[in-house]
């Protein structure tokens, strides 16, 4: 970890057209303070990778409301009506990826793989424009890795070294996106002195910055 940063320093990391992965499942485990700062920064034309579209007032939904997102890669958008509206009016491009495929694509990005073969999505419209690779007479879809410029981590318990664990179901996509971005910023729900080495989920060298607690 490089260190704790404050609001201003975090906003300086942001740029138009960034690809940003955001943790959370229906906003449970999403880093709400970091998302608010992305709103405050006014950066635009973002590609957001997140499990879902959140809600208009929670999770990545807040960035959809402000029209900062150009492209959303998610598995589910049903809880945020704004996503549907902007899709219809072609203001927002949406790529739907099955949730397990999304997780494996992010893992592939984080682990340097060129892709993974899965049966999920075969014989559905998810197959469109994708390659089918046959292994031992069984067809699989080739799904490609996802990477990002920035990963925003929520639900974290952080220790002074920058190691992370996660509280309950806020874990979800957070540990996976921590490997798949050039810069990883975590928002801690809880700060502790030291996490037992057996209980660390995201080792500190994977974390670049932790947002300092509000003064």
């Amino acid at each position, binding site marked *: 970890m490089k260190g704790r940063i404050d609001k201003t320093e975090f906003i300086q990391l942001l740029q138009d057209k960034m690809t940003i992965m955001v943790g959370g499942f*229906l906003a449970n485990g999403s880093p709400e303070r970091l998302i608010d700062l992305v709103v405050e920064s006014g950066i635009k034309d973002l590609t957001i990778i997140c499990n879902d579209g959140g809600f208009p007032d929670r999770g990545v939904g807040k960035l959809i409301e402000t029209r900062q997102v150009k492209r959303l890669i998610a598995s589910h958008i049903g809880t945020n009506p704004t996503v549907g509206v902007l899709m219809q009016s072609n203001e927002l491009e949406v790529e739907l990826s*099955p949730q397990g495929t999304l997780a494996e694509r992010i893992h592939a990005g984080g682990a340097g793989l060129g892709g993974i073969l899965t049966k*999920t999505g075969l014989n559905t419209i998810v197959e469109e424009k994708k390659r089918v690779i046959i292994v031992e007479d069984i067809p699989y879809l080739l799904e490609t890795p996802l990477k990002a410029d920035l990963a925003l981590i929520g639900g974290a318990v952080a220790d002074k070294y920058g190691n992370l664990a996660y509280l*309950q*179901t806020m874990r*979800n996509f957070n540990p996976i996106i921590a490997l798949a971005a050039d810069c990883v910023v975590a928002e801690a729900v809880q700060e502790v002195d030291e996490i037992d080495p057996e209980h660390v989920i995201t080792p500190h060298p994977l974390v670049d910055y932790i947002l300092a607690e509000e003064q």
Partner: protein
Amino acid sequence: MDDKQIIAKRIAMELNDGDLVNLGIGIPTLVADYIEPGKTIVFHSENGVVGMGPYIDENTYIVNAGGNKASVLKGGAFIDSLMSFSMIRGGHISVTVLGALEVDIEGNVASWIVPGKRVPGMGGAMDLVEGAKKVIIAMTHTNKGQPKILTRCRLPLTAANQVDMIVTEMAVMSVEKDGLHLKEVHPNYSIEEVLKATEAPLIIDQVIPMKGIEL
């Protein structure tokens, strides 16, 4: 019991002691209320819980796959999305119970999109239908009189050839190689009424009254 409860109760009888079960949102969620005494069923929630418990009035960060407050039972575990979907896609889930818009005689299911109308996304449904050992569809027999059990699904598929069983308020059907078999009919309905409400041809060998119905 209303229609939804009838469906849920009947499906609960399909679960075996020790099964790891994933319940979808809607009617499937109700299945948990009808587990017979003496059976231990472990519920898997794809957002990251093994051993999911019901809503409790406590301050936690635990939500279920619908984003609603839930709990973890003794012996449970929190997992990340990669582990969750490794369990789903790797065949480690004994049974998944899911709602559907359409099912057909080949075991195809459509549940995630009505083009031009509703595009909620597939979430984890494609992975669950593809990966679970047994797939049970829990749904009302028709959509306000419009058949949902078809010769061939018209809506875009969630997965092909994966459904094992369909349970509605009227009947229980199993998907076999030669088509849909009518196995059980709710005593409130005649076989003729079921056939009339079903677009697909049903194979009738031996039909018994729907199990678990107290008149």
